[in-house]
Every structure is written in C-alpha cells, then in structure tokens.
C-alpha cells in the first residue's frame, strides 16, 4: 500500500511541507485538509486585497494547476475535528476518517476576541482570512469610520489599509505596548510615531467596554473611560492562539501550540507540527516559543515535510528574530514574549 501523508492546514507551512514530501516520495498519497474554501493564499497580502490592489487570484501561494500537477489531494472546506494517535486516523467534520502514516499539524493561529467582548461578537469584524478581507473591501465605499481594539499585526495592518482608504481610524490599545511580538522600547516609540503620522487616532491605556448597534451597520462603541465613538466597523483582538484545540484529547503534548522537537516532531512518533501552531525550544531564550511569520512557516514546513518522508532526520536551524514590515518599516519582533 502507498504511504499516506496527511497535512492539516493549507497555509504556507502545509503547502511547503507537501512540496517537500513530494520531492522525496513520488509514489505516496498526500492529502491536505483545509477548513477554508479558498485556494491557499498568502495572508500577508490580505491588506492589498482590502485596498483593491490585488484580487484573490493574485495572492495564491501556488498557481491553481499546481495541486493536480503535484498529485496532491486538496480537501478544502473540511475541518479536522480529532486525531487518533494509536489508530492513525484523523476525523473530519464531514464524519470521514482518513488514515495516515505520517501527519503534519500546520493549522496556524487565529485571532481571539477578548473575553469581555465575546458577547458582542456578532458586531465585530475579523481580519485573518480572505473572506474577512473581501467583506471589508466590499464595505469600504460606505465606510466612514472604524474602531480597532488591540495590538499586534492584524490590528495594525487593518489600521494601515483603512486609513489609506480614507477611513477615519481610532486605534485603542489597553496598555502602552503596540505590538504583540514584543518590541524594544525605542522601536515601540518609533511605531507610535508612525501610527500618529498616518493620521490614526491612537488611544492608549483604554479599552472597549460596550458595543451597540444603533442602525443597521452603524455602531456606537463605549470605552472604559466613558468616551464613545461612532463607526461602521469594529475590530477587537485579544491576541492570538494556535489552532490546536482539536488535539486536546489526542495525547499529543500541547502547551499553547504543539510542542515539537528540533526535528519538528511532536511527542508522538510520526506526528509533526510546523508554522504558527508549533512551539519549539529556543536556546537563546531558554524556553519553548512560537515562531511567527510566513518565511518561518515555509521553512518549518519544508523541514517537517522532509523529515516525515525521509529516512534521515534533519534539524531545524533556529533563526534569530526576524524583521517584519509594519507601516512600511522593518521592525524586529518575536511572538509571545
């Protein structure tokens, strides 16, 4: 029987793993299960989609014909709901059971809504998927003002593109840090200036208290300070969490993400993790941490893929902090300080 590789998540990490496996093993079966319905794309380009500068077909990780050419089975629109480590099965939301010889968890991370704002979820916009970006793009023509709560990449990127589109943007951060992957103090100050120069109203040390829909698509946001802001879009991020809850009872060891060794193998033989959902020991920090960003996800995917398929195992070279382009500037950051 052909060896069967299952990859959960068709982000950068998942796709580069699939390519690496195929390069080593021509005959095996490779199935990528992806919850979203779009063809795999670069999340970093979502801002360009909102701005209308790029269409969905222009931000693809691989051209459309890639999947057939590489003989990959891309199972879009299906979520993995659990994994049986001993049985070597993943279970899908459509009640299907897929057998695997080796499994890669490449499910990325997602933005979480702050606990105290969960009850307003129906009024809140999200910005992590293509669907989100298209929704915001389509709403732009009639959007005058937006309030974004939180720090971190998505909030900042959304602030940048909205203000560029002529939307009046208020950015509220609960503390004096503007970015999740911690920035050194001077970088933080630099970022603060960049935000102000862009014409964004920055409110630090305050938080959203209440969101009320006044008319259809028009919200009144009350801050803890008592201040109210009227706007057509409300975004609230309380940070990120790796998408690993489906592994809870699997026996695979989890911290915030999937704990992996230098070979990107989890605590279970033949089960690997890569990208934004993997937690790996960082010698210079002295503990496990999650690397962020797509260059990192691509590299981890590639190494994990080769290790899943190959005989000899290869170690991941842990990189130093990587620069991120935020507001047109390269800043150094790492996630989960």
């Amino acid at each position: 029987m052909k060896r069967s590789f299952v990859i959960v998540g068709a982000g950068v990490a998942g796709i580069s793993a699939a390519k690496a496996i195929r390069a080593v093993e021509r005959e095996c079966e490779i199935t990528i299960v992806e919850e979203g319905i779009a063809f795999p794309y670069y999340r970093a380009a979502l801002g360009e989609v909102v701005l209308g500068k790029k269409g969905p077909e222009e931000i693809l990780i691989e051209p459309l014909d890639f999947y057939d050419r590489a003989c990959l089975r891309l199972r879009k629109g299906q979520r993995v709901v659990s994994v049986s480590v001993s049985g070597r099965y993943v279970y899908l939301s459509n009640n299907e059971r897929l057998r695997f010889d080796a499994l890669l968890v490449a499910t990325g991370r997602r933005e979480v809504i702050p606990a105290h704002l969960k009850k307003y979820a129906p009024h809140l916009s999200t910005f992590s998927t293509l669907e989100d970006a298209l929704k915001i793009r389509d709403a732009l023509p009639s959007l005058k003002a937006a309030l974004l709560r939180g720090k971190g990449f998505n909030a900042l990127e959304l602030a940048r593109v909205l203000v560029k589109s002529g939307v009046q943007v208020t950015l509220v951060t609960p503390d004096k840090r503007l970015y999740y992957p911690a920035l050194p103090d001077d970088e933080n100050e630099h970022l603060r200036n960049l935000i102000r120069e862009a014409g964004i109203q920055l409110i630090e040390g305050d938080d959203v208290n209440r969101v009320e829909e006044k008319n259809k698509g028009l919200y009144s946001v009350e801050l803890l300070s008592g201040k109210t802001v009227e706007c057509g879009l409300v975004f609230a991020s309380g940070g990120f969490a790796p998408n690993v809850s489906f592994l809870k009872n699997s026996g695979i060891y989890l911290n915030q993400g999937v704990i992996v060794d230098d070979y990107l193998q989890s605590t279970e033989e033949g089960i690997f993790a890569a990208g934004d959902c993997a937690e790996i020991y960082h010698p210079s920090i002295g503990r496990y941490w999650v690397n962020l960003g797509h260059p990192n996800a691509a590299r981890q995917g590639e190494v994990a893929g080769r290790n899943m398929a190959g005989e000899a195992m290869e170690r991941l070279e842990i990189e130093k902090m990587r620069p991120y382009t935020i507001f047109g500037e390269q800043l150094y950051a790492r996630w989960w300080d």
Partner: protein
Amino acid sequence: MARRQITIQTCGGAGDGSVATGALIARAAVKLGYSVLVYDTFPAEIRGFGKTISEVRVSVEEVTARADAVDVLIGLNNVFAIEQIKTLAEDAVIIYDSLPGITVKESESVPHFAGNYMSPYGVPLEHTAQRVTGRKLGKNVVAVGFLAKLLGLPKEPFHQVLKELFLRKGEKVLSQNIALFDEGYAYEEVEYRLIELEKAPPPGEERVIISGNDAMTRAAVNASLAVFAGYPITPASKLMENLAKELPRYGGIVVQTEDEIAAIGAVTGAWFAGKRAMTATSGPGLSLMSEIINLGVMTETPLVIVNAMRGGPSTGLPTKVEQADLNIALWGGHGDSPRVVLAPTNIAESYAVLQDAFDVAEKYQTPVIVLTDKFIAMSHTSVPASILEEKRGSTRLEYTGPPEAYRRFAITETGVSPWVVPGTPGISYTTSGLEHDETGAPGYDVPNHVAMTEKRFRKFRAMLGDLPAPVFEGPEDGKNLVVSWGSSFGAVEEGVKRLWNDGYSIRLCKMTTIFPQHEDVMRGAFERAEKVIVVEQNRFGQLAKFLKGYYGISADEVHLPGGEPPSPGEVTEAVKERLLV
C-alpha cells in the same frame, strides 16, 4: 462574474426522488423567469430501479441543448454521487449527504473523490428529513433548499411550487415540505461560496414546462385527433399514456393493440373511414410497421406515425438518444414508396410539426413519419403557454362532383384525388394495394403504372408550400454551410454561435422537412457555400448521404456519437477542424 446559465444534476437511487427534484428546481426557475431544459436518465430495465439522474439547465437565454458540463451535483445517494463525479465540470459544486453520526471511510466519502477544484458541501439531508418528517422521504427537498441559498435565489418561488405540488396531499404534507426546504436554506454549518446567477428577465407571458411527448399530446388533441392506436415502447410510451387520459374527454379513442403491426393497421382503418388517427412508436416498432406504411402509400391513405428514436439497432439502447432511424423512415419501403419525413428540432417545435403532419397527411393522402427522439420526447422545457393553443381541423379535398363520376384515384395536376368517405351513398369507392387504375380497379399495364407512380410522386411537389421550409441563420455568403436536423440541432446552433464569436464564416441550416426536399432553396444554398458540413447523431451520416445523392454535392459528414444528447462543446470540437477559414 455572474453566470448566464448553470446546470444542476440530481442523482439518486430508487425512491430518492431525483426526477421530482429536477422538476422542482425547474418549476421554481421558470417562475423566476429563467429558461430551463430538464434531461432525465434512468436505467432501461425497470423505471425506479437503480441510478436515476435528472439534469436541469437553467439559463437567462432560451436553451434547447444540454450544457457542456454539470456545474452542481446534488447527490441523494453518496455511492451514485461518487460515480457521477468524473462527469462534472472541473470546478463543480457537490451537495452530498453528510450523514451525521456515521463515520465513513475514504472509499465511501464524496469529498475524497471530488477533484481539487471542486467544492463538496456536506449537508445532513437524510438526517434533517428524518427529524422533520420522521421518515427519510423529503431529503431531496432539503437539498433543493440548500441549492437555492447557494444560488442566492429567493425562497418564495420554491414555496409556491411546493404548494402547487403538495397542497392536494394535505396541509401537513405541504407544511412539512416547506419546513424541509427552509431547513436546507438555513443550513449554516458549512462555509460556502455563492454561485452568482445573472437575474432573468422579468417573466413575461405565462410559461409552462412540458416534454416533447406532452407537447405532441396537446398538438394531436388540438389537431382533432380521433383515434390513437399503439403499442408501448420507450421513449414514445408517454404519448399514448397521455392520450389515454386526454383523448376520451374530446370524444376520441385510444386502443392499445397487441403489437405495432396491429397498431398501424388500426390507424390505417381509421383514416380509411375518414378519421384523423395516429400511432407512436420507436425504431423496432417502425420496422414492424413498414409493410402497412407501403399500403398507405399505394392506397393513398393518410397516416401519421410518430417515431421517437432511441439507440439501435434492434432493441438497442431503449433509454438513450440517437438519430439513426432516418434511413428506415426515408427508405424503409418496398417499391417506389415516397413518404413525408418531418423532424422537429426541439420540444416547442414538435407541437407545430405534428399538426403540420396531420394537415399534410390528410390533404395529400399520404403517410407522414415524424421523427423525434428520446431527448425531445422525454426531456422537459419551458415554453410560452400560448404556443400550445393552435387548433387544426380537416384539410381533406372533398369530392363534390356527381356520384357516378367518382374515381378514387383520378389523375390530377397536383396528384391529389378528391376524397370521399367509403360508404357514401351512391358512390362506389374502390381501393387496392395492387397497382390500380383511376377507378381503383387493379391494373398492371405499364403506362398505367408509370402514370400512377408519377401521380404519387407529384403530390410531393405540390405539398412543399404546406411544409416547414429550411431555416437559415448567419451570413448568406458564409463560406461554410452547416446543415443539421433533429434534436442535435440545438447543440449545433449553440456551437455555431460560439464559432461565429471566434470569427468563423458559417451559414447554418435547420432542416425540419427532410422529405420532400425544398429543392430550389437548398440548391441555391449549396451553390453559394464553399463547403458543406452535415452534423447528425448517427454513424452512417444518414442525412449527409441522402443530400449528397440527391443533390450530387460533396459534403463533410460529422457523426456525433449516439447515446447521450451532444453538447455545444462537442459540436464545436467536431466541426471546427473541418471549417474553411
């Protein structure tokens, strides 16, 4: 970009209601102003056994052909749905039964077999039906609800159709079906992408959905049909079944005979007695009727025979499509036995063509064979209700002279001899299958036979004005002349339109009257064209060979494979390489 047309296929097993699903989708689409074509496929052996497929093409424009590919598959049975996947468009959407609570292996999983560019959406069809009605019945309505949401269509027209279908079964059945539909419509568990369909023009005049067999039923009743005799055979059976219900209400009678020979005998007898009569059959039945059709030619008795073609030879492919009975229709007689052969190209046309058949048969006292096929006879389409209204009556050339001077086969300029009903007092009516003289008495001398043969052929010139002339589309000076007939014409027409867009110089000819030929018109058309291409769905090139012999022209033959109705894409592919540029 919004699509101008979409094809939805429903596939299921016995009792899953595939055909009913297709009908429900089609009726709602017509209410929204779309044009529809419904093509059903079922196993030949027993209806309601095995895999049944219903395909609905919904379009902003009129459609008379199947689409190139299926865009949406509704799988009411996952095993059958998996089999269908290879026939779908590369980017098709699949709605399948997600069967909550049951873990399926890859080998039983619809999404496992779906291609990388397809979107399989699992919806708990049976589960929902069970919950709403306590039975599995109605899972197809759940699927249609989800489909309507997927296409961004409003609920109301679907509710209306459900009302039309189920109100007579009681309030409870109706409200259950509405609930089933709404559950499907509201199903939110899967992420999906809207399939945008261009809005149809606002519905104008009333439109109804009918099959070719239905249209011909109305046509026959409205053409004063008095007697139908027949023996059931797919795909013609429904015509008899319809008439058995309808005709008695208008004072007519329907006889199911022991075989096709008896059927055509009864029809001959009815016409002999002055009543409009017809039979309907398919290839094997037409073979059996050959002998008596010749009697009709010789005795100048009108006959109307509808032959709904299926795949042959012999019992062949009872539930499939082919245009291969032209040869037997034209040449299936012994002796010099001319008969009128007509072939409507679509469901709407079959109404008028059958009425023409009655009029011409009666006026010119000759057998008329109307060729339809399984595609026309058993598919459904939307037509303006008004085209099913026209009424026709007797076209008989009555004898008005003195009784004693009556000669049944009087030689006239048109070849038509005035007619009386046998038994008219004072008139001696003599007829025979033997060659006869003007009085009807047997006469074998050579000059008489020559004169009588001439007379029988002369009628075919006289009748041309009463028969549909060839219809041309496209530039008169088109380099290429593409000729087609029968149900494949719809695909040919759509295919040629695409080739026009690609810049090809093509004149298109639709031939509804195959014999007699509108010779002057056709000769002119052949002379103008640099190349002639005849497209038809048979292996012989039956029309092509006939035209080549008749006109002494050369022509390229395109033989579309038999079985399923061709698609426009198949036509363009086959025709393109032969075109002069």
